[in-house]
Every structure is written in C-alpha cells, then in structure tokens.
C-alpha cells in the first residue's frame, strides 16, 4: 500500500476523523483564548458535561442493540425529584442516592416492559415516557424547588479527588467508560449486543436472550440516569422539575457523533469518548471567547454533519483507489484479495 492509500484508509475510520477534530478543537481554542490550555480550566470545564457524558455510555449500548431511549432527561428529573423528597424526609446521603438510583432503575424497567411486552418501537414509547416522567416531577413539585441538600452532597458532583484538581465526576466517568468499553469490546456480552443490533432475529435464532439483554440495557440506562441525577443534583444542590431540560437529544447527539450507527450494530467506545470531549471542549472554548450560544449551536450542528460526511468521502476515495489498482494487469492474484 502506498502512503497516500494508507492515509486514506486511516481516515475511513470514523475515530480518526474524530481525533483530528478533537485536535483541531484544541489548537483552535488554544490560539483563540489564552485561558483555554490552563490545566485547571480544562479540568473544571468537564464538570459541565460529565452528566451527559455518563449518560452517553448506556445510551450507546441501547443504540447499538437497535433501540433508543428519549426519556433519559425525564428520568433524571424524576430521579432528582425522588431524591429531593427523600432529603426532605430527612434521609441521609446514602439513602438519597439509593432512592435516585432506584427511581431511575424503575423508570428504565418501565420502558423495558412497555417496549418488550407490547413490541412498540422504543422511540415511540420513550417519547411518551419522557413526558410522563418529567410530568410526574411537575405533579409532585409544582412550582416548588427542593433545596437545602446537605452540603456534603456537593463533594460528589462538584468535588475534587482529595487535594488534587481532578473533578470527581471526571474520574467516575473514566471508570464507567472503562467498564463499558471493556464490556462492549472485549466480552461476549458486547459481542452479543452488536449481533442483536445487526440482526435481532438471527441473534434470537442463535440462542441469544435478546429480550433479556434489551431489558437489562433499558434498566441500566435508567439506573445510570438515576446516577446522573445524583451528580447533577449534587452539582446544583437543588431540584426543580425542569432540571436537565432537553438533554435527551444532546445525549443522543454525543452518541451518534461518536460514530454509533442509529440503526444499531455499529460503534465504539473510543468514538463516543472522542465525541464527548470534542463537543465538550468545543463548547467550552467557544464560550471562553464569548461566542453567542446560538452560534455555538450552529457550529456544533455543522460539526455533527461534517464528521459524518468526511469519512464517507474518504471511503469513496479509498474504494476508487483499490479498484483502480485492480484494473491494472493483476501482477499477483493472491495479494489482490489479501490486501483488502
């Protein structure tokens, strides 16, 4: 393979494009703002997108098995609300966390139940439960806010590891990402998820417990949403029913920009990690030079589209190169197939 071919081949991989984007974001931001590359700023900036980043992990699995969960933000709202009620009732922090996790889990299980029991497309079901979950928060809280969380709670969502400058949520995200990554890419479970996403019928006929895995993933998504609710609540130390508004599409955006096919069966943890930090730091960098938020929206939107178009272009290019090569008189038929 020639150098140019190898280069083209490299860029066919989605992740390669994302790496370039991330580097580009860093270079651009560093040249535009002197504050960007400060370590403390880079670390602190993560506080603002870690809940969504954490949500992107189980969402990635759900999308890989060919489903989707639009109700995550609603789940965060209801989990935070329940957690707040627990706090009001005088519960300690462990109980509060347990309540949030439990609520999220229940919400996820409800999604799983409706999707799997009635065989309704998950996008339809979760559009409904999105309103239902958030609606329950409104019904409970009305125009009230829950405040007065114990200040110790803050050490979770806005705290640092020991005396370092490393944010707690970032570390939690790193640990979760490692677990999710290993599971997805190395374990037989992950292999099964890909199989299910590619062809659920064939997966079932191959003896994989498709429905059980999907139920687990929906529940897991709810559970993690409950956890995201804990982090967010601890970060803002209050709860209102409009908490995490419109996050559902942001989480989905993180996942699909990471190269996870919305039709299922394709995507890597590496891509999602890159997408999380690309978007996160792009937004942070642009806000450092005070670009209006709407313009930030335009830029991230174009980035999303561009990141998809580019690998496709490279792929076309590389296919053409390979076919061109074949059209030359075949020197050695063996290398011909092996080289592909």
């Amino acid at each position: 393979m020639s150098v140019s071919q190898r280069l083209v081949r490299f860029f066919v991989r989605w992740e390669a494009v994302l790496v370039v984007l991330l580097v580009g974001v860093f270079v651009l931001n560093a040249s535009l703002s002197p504050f960007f590359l400060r370590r403390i700023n880079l670390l602190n900036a993560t506080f603002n997108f870690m809940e969504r980043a954490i949500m992107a992990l189980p969402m990635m699995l759900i999308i890989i098995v060919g489903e989707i969960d639009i109700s995550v933000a609603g789940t965060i709202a209801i989990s935070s609300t329940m957690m707040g009620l627990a706090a009001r009732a005088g519960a300690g922090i462990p109980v509060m966390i347990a309540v949030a996790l439990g609520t999220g889990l229940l919400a996820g299980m409800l999604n799983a139940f409706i999707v799997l029991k009635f065989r309704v497309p998950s996008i339809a079901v979760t559009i409904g439960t999105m309103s239902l979950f958030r609606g329950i928060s409104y019904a409970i809280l009305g125009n009230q806010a829950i405040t007065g969380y114990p200040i110790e709670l803050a050490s979770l969502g806005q705290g640092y590891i020991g005396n370092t400058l490393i944010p707690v949520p970032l570390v939690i995200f790193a640990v979760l990402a490692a677990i999710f990554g290993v599971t997805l890419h190395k374990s037989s479970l992950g292999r099964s998820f890909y199989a299910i996403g590619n062809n659920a019928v064939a997966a079932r006929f191959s003896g994989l417990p498709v429905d059980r895995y999907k139920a687990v993933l929906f529940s897991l998504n709810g559970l993690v949403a409950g956890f995201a609710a804990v982090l967010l609540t601890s970060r803002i130390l209050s709860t209102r029913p409009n908490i995490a508004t419109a996050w559902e599409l942001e989480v989905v955006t993180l996942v699909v920009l990471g190269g996870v096919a919305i039709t299922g069966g394709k995507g890597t943890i590496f891509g999602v990690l890159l997408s999380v930090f690309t978007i996160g730091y792009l937004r942070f960098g642009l806000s450092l030079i005070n670009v209006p938020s709407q313009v930030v929206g335009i830029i991230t939107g174009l980035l999303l589209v561009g990141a998809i178009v580019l690998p496709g272009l490279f792929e076309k290019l590389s296919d053409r190169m390979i076919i061109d090569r074949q059209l030359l008189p075949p020197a050695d038929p063996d290398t011909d197939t092996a080289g592909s």
Partner: protein
Amino acid sequence: MRRNQSPIAAILARREITLLVIIVVLVAAVGIRAPRFLQPARQLSILNDTIILLMLTLGQLAVILTAGIDLSVASNLAFTGMAVAMWNMVMPGVPMVVLVGASILIGASLGAFNGVMVSVGKVPPIIMTLGTMSVYRGMVFLISGGAWVSAHQMSESFRGFARFNILGLPSLVWIGVITTALVYVFLRFTRSGRELYAVGDNATAAGFVGVSARKAQFKAFVLSGAIAGLTGLLWVSRFASAQNDTAIGFELETVAAAVIGGVSIMGGSGTVTGVVLGAVFLGIVKNALTVVGVSPFWQMAIQGAVILVAIVANTVVDRRNQARLSARRISA
C-alpha cells in the same frame, strides 16, 4: 386473506379505526366533564390550534415513510417565520402572495439542504437533522440579532393572514385542509409519492425496479421543509410575534403525532388519514387538559400517559389483526 374477511372486520382491521375510537371516547369523556367542550365553536378552535401540528406532521410523514426522520422542522419553522416577518417589517408593502411563496421557498431550501446531505452525502437523517435543528435555530438568532418582531411591526394583512374568514372558517384551517389534500394526492396519486413508500419499505427492492432512494429522500425532505416554511409564516402571523424560540421542542411532537397516527417509524407504512387523526388526537389532549381544568402541574404527566396508552393500544390492535390474518392462512 382480505377476500374472505367480512366487510366489518376489514374496516375494524384498519389501524386508523382504533385511534378514531380512542378520540371519540376522549371527546365524550371531556364533554361530560365540560359540556362547553362539545360546542362547534370550541371544536373549531381546537382544529385551528391543531392545523400547524398537522401540517408539520404531514411533512414528517413524507420523511418517515422513506425510513428517515426530520428533527429540524421546528427550527426551520422558526427561521422561516422570522425571515418573512422581518421582510414584512422592512417592506410592509410586499404583497402576502409573495411572502407565502417566499416562506415555501425558504423552507424548501432548508429542507433541500437536509435532503442533499442525506441523499448525496449519505448522512443518516437523524444525525443530519439533529445537526440542522441547532444550525437553523442558531440562524434565527443571527438574522434577528436576538430581537423579536412584534405585532405593530407587522402589516395589517400579515397579522390577519392566518385568521381571515372564508365561508365561516379561518384561513388557517383552509390552508391546512388544502395542504392535507395536496399531500394526500401526492402520496396516493403520483409516482414520486408512491416511491417514498417503496424506498422506506425495501430500499433494495426499490433499487431493483429503478426507484432511486436518494431522489425519494431528497423529495421528502424538500416537502417537509416547504411545509415547515409555510407553517413558519402561519405561526408568526397567528401569534403576531416572531421570536427566537418559536416552536421550540415541537419536532418531537410531530414525531409523536405521526407515531400515534400509526406511521411506522421504520418507514414504508403510514397514511395521511392516520396523521390527521394523530395530530387531532394530540390537539384534543392538549386543549382538553386546559378546558377540563386539570391542575397545570399534572398536565404533562397526563399527556405523557395518554400518548403512551394511544401508542400501545394502536400497536396491540394492529398486531392482533395481523395474528388473525396469519392464523387464517392455515385454515384457509
């Protein structure tokens, strides 16, 4: 098989009927609580309130039929609405016909951008329109500089455009009816319309008979965009105010209306009748909650629950019909 089914069973097997029954029950239930709700004037006002959702959902239908989705409709609406409102503000003399044409054109161009990137650039529709959802929304801010266009900055004819009366019905309703009829004819009686179904149902098979998936996707997005543009004008005229967050969050509502109306999110199946019922259903739910006097804090939860029930009921009934059909195969 159809042929040995009784006519009544054939009617009941239609998915739309389930929804119609649900709607009738809903209206009756609300009517018992609040008899005023049943007055023709009220029903007309609900219809009026539902038209824009209905029109957008028709565009959404076209895209979903090709196994796509258009999440940029609401942003498109906001942008086009702002653009024509600003034009009207700057040049109040420009006749409405021109603005109508412009709104359709602007909307169609935004749709065409989606369409080109999806069909030629091979960007999955959901990603493309997630992107343009924020791009178009940001563009509203760019052209308006963050300011609104208010009633007094609009010409009399602009403000009155969505509500002047023709034969006892507001123009908004007429436009909705005409759009619905046109989309119906397009989907039922033109090759391009049928090709949307073909492409969404089985893209490979469509390729085998020379139906281009790319062209179909492009057309669907242009149609969706054109309708979104027109509704932009209607929205701004109806509320006599063009704002930056006009119709924010409306995109998921159109998807919900389509899904409730029995449109298969996988593509290839869905009808205009279903969409009309789906949009009307959502419109009734929203209006009924304000009329019945449910605590405002409960509205969202109830709306979510009702949507869930409708979707589940619709799917389950459909499945039961399917099962009946296949059981009959063996015995036939």
